[in-house]
Protein backbone atom coordinates (compact mmCIF):
# COMPACT_ATOMS: atom_id res chain seq x y z
CA UNK A 1 0.00 0.00 0.00
CA UNK A 2 2.82 2.34 0.95
CA UNK A 3 4.70 1.49 -2.26
CA UNK A 4 1.59 2.10 -4.34
CA UNK A 5 1.20 5.52 -2.76
CA UNK A 6 4.86 6.30 -3.43
CA UNK A 7 4.45 5.29 -7.09
CA UNK A 8 1.45 7.56 -7.41
CA UNK A 9 3.41 10.42 -5.86
CA UNK A 10 6.25 9.83 -8.31
CA UNK A 11 3.87 9.87 -11.25
CA UNK A 12 2.34 13.15 -10.07
CA UNK A 13 5.82 14.62 -9.69
CA UNK A 14 6.77 13.39 -13.17
CA UNK A 15 3.65 14.92 -14.70
CA UNK A 16 4.59 18.34 -13.32
CA UNK A 17 8.22 18.03 -14.44
CA UNK A 18 7.28 16.74 -17.91
CA UNK A 19 4.79 19.57 -18.48
CA UNK A 20 7.51 22.12 -17.76
CA UNK A 21 9.98 20.34 -20.06
CA UNK A 22 7.45 20.13 -22.88
CA UNK A 23 7.13 23.91 -22.86
CA UNK A 24 10.88 24.28 -23.19
CA UNK A 25 11.06 21.67 -25.96
CA UNK A 26 8.34 23.46 -27.88
CA UNK A 27 10.48 26.61 -27.77
CA UNK A 28 13.53 24.83 -29.22
CA UNK A 29 11.64 22.71 -31.73
CA UNK A 30 13.28 24.34 -34.74
CA UNK A 31 16.85 24.07 -33.44
CA UNK A 32 18.84 21.70 -35.60
CA UNK A 33 20.76 18.87 -33.99
CA UNK A 34 24.55 18.73 -34.47
CA UNK A 35 25.97 15.85 -36.55
CA UNK A 36 25.77 12.57 -34.66
CA UNK A 37 28.84 11.40 -32.81
CA UNK A 38 30.53 12.40 -29.58
CA UNK A 39 28.93 15.49 -28.04
CA UNK A 40 30.16 15.44 -24.47
CA UNK A 41 33.14 13.55 -23.18
CA UNK A 42 36.37 13.67 -21.27
CA UNK A 43 38.40 14.08 -24.45
CA UNK A 44 39.87 17.44 -23.50
CA UNK A 45 40.70 16.21 -20.00
CA UNK A 46 42.26 13.04 -21.37
CA UNK A 47 44.40 15.01 -23.82
CA UNK A 48 45.55 17.34 -21.06
CA UNK A 49 46.23 14.42 -18.74
CA UNK A 50 48.14 12.65 -21.50
CA UNK A 51 50.24 15.76 -22.12
CA UNK A 52 51.00 16.01 -18.42
CA UNK A 53 51.98 12.35 -18.29
CA UNK A 54 54.30 12.74 -21.29
CA UNK A 55 55.89 15.80 -19.72
CA UNK A 56 56.37 13.98 -16.43
CA UNK A 57 57.81 10.92 -18.17
CA UNK A 58 60.25 13.12 -20.14
CA UNK A 59 61.46 14.89 -17.02
CA UNK A 60 61.93 11.56 -15.25
CA UNK A 61 64.03 10.17 -18.09
CA UNK A 62 66.43 13.13 -18.04
Amino acid sequence: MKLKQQDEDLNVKWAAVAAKNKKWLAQVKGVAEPPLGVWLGPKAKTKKAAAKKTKAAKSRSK
Partner: protein
Amino acid sequence: MNISLAQVEGKYRRFREVVYRGTEEEEYAAFGVGLHSISVNDALDADEWPNAKSWSWVQQLRQYCNDPKRFDVGLSVKGRLCALCIGTPSKAGLSLKLHVLEGKPDGNPLKGQVLKIILFAAHGYAGMIGATEVWLCDPINDDLVSVYERYGYMAVRDKKNNVTHLKKDT
Protein backbone atom coordinates in the same frame (compact mmCIF):
# COMPACT_ATOMS: atom_id res chain seq x y z
CA MET B 1 17.16 7.36 10.44
CA ASN B 2 19.89 5.54 8.56
CA ILE B 3 19.22 4.66 4.96
CA SER B 4 21.15 1.75 3.48
CA LEU B 5 22.93 1.94 0.13
CA ALA B 6 20.44 -0.58 -1.25
CA GLN B 7 17.54 1.70 -0.28
CA VAL B 8 19.21 4.69 -1.93
CA GLU B 9 19.94 2.62 -5.04
CA GLY B 10 16.31 1.46 -5.09
CA LYS B 11 14.95 4.96 -4.66
CA TYR B 12 16.96 6.43 -7.53
CA ARG B 13 16.37 3.38 -9.74
CA ARG B 14 12.64 4.08 -9.40
CA PHE B 15 13.23 7.72 -10.35
CA ARG B 16 15.08 6.57 -13.45
CA GLU B 17 12.36 4.07 -14.36
CA VAL B 18 9.67 6.76 -14.10
CA VAL B 19 11.77 9.04 -16.32
CA TYR B 20 12.43 6.28 -18.89
CA ARG B 21 8.79 5.22 -19.15
CA GLY B 22 7.55 8.81 -19.01
CA THR B 23 9.87 9.98 -21.79
CA GLU B 24 8.92 7.01 -23.98
CA GLU B 25 5.22 7.74 -23.58
CA GLU B 26 5.12 11.52 -23.38
CA GLU B 27 6.82 12.92 -26.43
CA TYR B 28 8.50 10.21 -28.38
CA ALA B 29 6.08 7.30 -28.66
CA ALA B 30 5.92 7.84 -32.43
CA PHE B 31 9.63 7.02 -32.77
CA GLY B 32 9.27 3.66 -30.99
CA VAL B 33 12.20 4.62 -28.82
CA GLY B 34 13.08 2.62 -25.73
CA LEU B 35 14.98 4.14 -22.80
CA HIS B 36 16.96 1.92 -20.47
CA SER B 37 19.94 1.74 -18.15
CA ILE B 38 23.29 1.22 -19.83
CA SER B 39 24.47 -2.39 -19.72
CA VAL B 40 28.01 -3.64 -20.29
CA ASN B 41 26.85 -4.97 -23.67
CA ASP B 42 25.62 -1.48 -24.62
CA ALA B 43 29.00 -0.04 -23.65
CA LEU B 44 30.86 -2.69 -25.67
CA ASP B 45 28.55 -2.02 -28.62
CA ALA B 46 29.16 1.75 -28.45
CA ASP B 47 32.92 1.24 -28.28
CA GLU B 48 32.67 -0.32 -31.75
CA TRP B 49 31.05 2.83 -33.23
CA PRO B 50 33.40 4.60 -35.62
CA ASN B 51 34.63 7.89 -34.18
CA ALA B 52 37.73 9.58 -32.88
CA LYS B 53 37.00 9.57 -29.17
CA SER B 54 39.87 8.84 -26.86
CA TRP B 55 37.85 7.17 -24.10
CA SER B 56 35.85 4.01 -23.84
CA TRP B 57 32.24 3.57 -22.76
CA VAL B 58 33.18 0.49 -20.75
CA GLN B 59 35.65 2.65 -18.82
CA GLN B 60 33.04 5.39 -18.33
CA LEU B 61 30.42 2.91 -17.19
CA ARG B 62 32.85 1.41 -14.68
CA GLN B 63 33.63 4.90 -13.39
CA TYR B 64 30.02 5.92 -12.78
CA CYS B 65 28.09 2.68 -12.25
CA ASN B 66 28.68 2.62 -8.49
CA ASP B 67 27.01 5.98 -7.95
CA PRO B 68 23.45 5.08 -6.91
CA LYS B 69 22.22 8.55 -7.91
CA ARG B 70 23.65 8.42 -11.43
CA PHE B 71 21.62 9.24 -14.52
CA ASP B 72 22.50 6.73 -17.21
CA VAL B 73 20.39 6.27 -20.28
CA GLY B 74 20.61 4.28 -23.47
CA LEU B 75 18.28 4.99 -26.39
CA SER B 76 17.28 2.05 -28.56
CA VAL B 77 14.92 1.53 -31.45
CA LYS B 78 13.82 -2.07 -32.07
CA GLY B 79 16.67 -3.28 -29.89
CA ARG B 80 19.30 -1.30 -31.81
CA LEU B 81 21.33 1.05 -29.65
CA CYS B 82 21.23 4.66 -30.92
CA ALA B 83 22.73 6.82 -28.16
CA LEU B 84 24.16 6.79 -24.65
CA CYS B 85 24.51 9.34 -21.88
CA ILE B 86 25.84 9.28 -18.32
CA GLY B 87 25.52 11.99 -15.70
CA THR B 88 25.69 12.37 -11.94
CA PRO B 89 24.14 14.83 -9.50
CA SER B 90 26.44 17.16 -7.59
CA LYS B 91 27.17 16.27 -3.96
CA ALA B 92 24.52 18.66 -2.69
CA GLY B 93 22.12 17.39 -5.35
CA LEU B 94 21.46 20.87 -6.71
CA SER B 95 22.70 20.18 -10.23
CA LEU B 96 22.73 17.20 -12.57
CA LYS B 97 25.99 17.03 -14.50
CA LEU B 98 26.02 15.19 -17.82
CA HIS B 99 29.55 13.91 -18.41
CA VAL B 100 29.42 11.79 -21.54
CA LEU B 101 26.98 11.82 -24.43
CA GLU B 102 27.21 10.18 -27.81
CA GLY B 103 24.86 9.39 -30.67
CA LYS B 104 25.59 6.53 -33.03
CA PRO B 105 27.10 8.23 -36.08
CA ASP B 106 25.87 5.87 -38.84
CA GLY B 107 22.43 4.45 -39.60
CA ASN B 108 20.78 6.10 -36.64
CA PRO B 109 16.95 6.00 -36.90
CA LEU B 110 16.71 8.77 -34.28
CA LYS B 111 18.83 11.21 -36.27
CA GLY B 112 17.76 14.76 -35.43
CA GLN B 113 15.99 13.71 -32.23
CA VAL B 114 18.71 12.21 -30.01
CA LEU B 115 19.70 15.38 -28.19
CA LYS B 116 16.10 16.44 -27.55
CA ILE B 117 15.14 13.02 -26.15
CA ILE B 118 18.19 12.83 -23.88
CA LEU B 119 17.83 16.39 -22.63
CA PHE B 120 14.11 15.85 -22.01
CA ALA B 121 14.94 12.77 -19.93
CA ALA B 122 17.86 14.49 -18.15
CA HIS B 123 15.78 17.52 -17.21
CA GLY B 124 13.02 15.15 -16.09
CA TYR B 125 15.44 13.25 -13.85
CA ALA B 126 16.86 16.51 -12.49
CA GLY B 127 13.34 17.65 -11.63
CA MET B 128 12.56 14.34 -9.95
CA ILE B 129 15.61 14.45 -7.69
CA GLY B 130 15.14 18.13 -6.86
CA ALA B 131 18.11 19.48 -8.82
CA THR B 132 17.66 23.04 -10.03
CA GLU B 133 20.23 23.01 -12.86
CA VAL B 134 21.45 20.68 -15.59
CA TRP B 135 25.11 21.03 -16.55
CA LEU B 136 26.66 19.85 -19.81
CA CYS B 137 30.28 19.16 -18.92
CA ASP B 138 33.19 18.99 -21.35
CA PRO B 139 31.63 19.90 -24.70
CA ILE B 140 33.84 18.43 -27.40
CA ASN B 141 34.18 21.62 -29.47
CA ASP B 142 33.02 25.24 -29.81
CA ASP B 143 30.53 24.44 -32.57
CA LEU B 144 28.65 22.29 -30.08
CA VAL B 145 28.73 25.10 -27.52
CA SER B 146 26.74 27.33 -29.88
CA VAL B 147 24.25 24.50 -30.48
CA TYR B 148 23.73 24.02 -26.75
CA GLU B 149 23.31 27.77 -26.33
CA ARG B 150 20.47 27.64 -28.85
CA TYR B 151 18.84 25.05 -26.58
CA GLY B 152 18.86 27.66 -23.83
CA TYR B 153 22.08 26.66 -22.05
CA MET B 154 24.50 29.28 -20.80
CA ALA B 155 28.22 28.72 -21.30
CA VAL B 156 30.47 29.04 -18.25
CA ARG B 157 34.07 29.98 -19.07
CA ASP B 158 37.32 29.79 -17.13
CA LYS B 159 39.96 32.54 -16.91
CA LYS B 160 41.42 31.46 -20.27
CA ASN B 161 37.96 31.86 -21.85
CA ASN B 162 37.59 28.10 -22.38
CA VAL B 163 34.11 26.71 -21.85
CA THR B 164 34.17 24.43 -18.81
CA HIS B 165 30.48 23.58 -18.92
CA LEU B 166 27.06 24.87 -19.88
CA LYS B 167 24.15 25.17 -17.53
CA LYS B 168 20.41 25.61 -17.65
CA ASP B 169 17.75 25.83 -14.97
CA THR B 170 15.35 22.91 -14.77
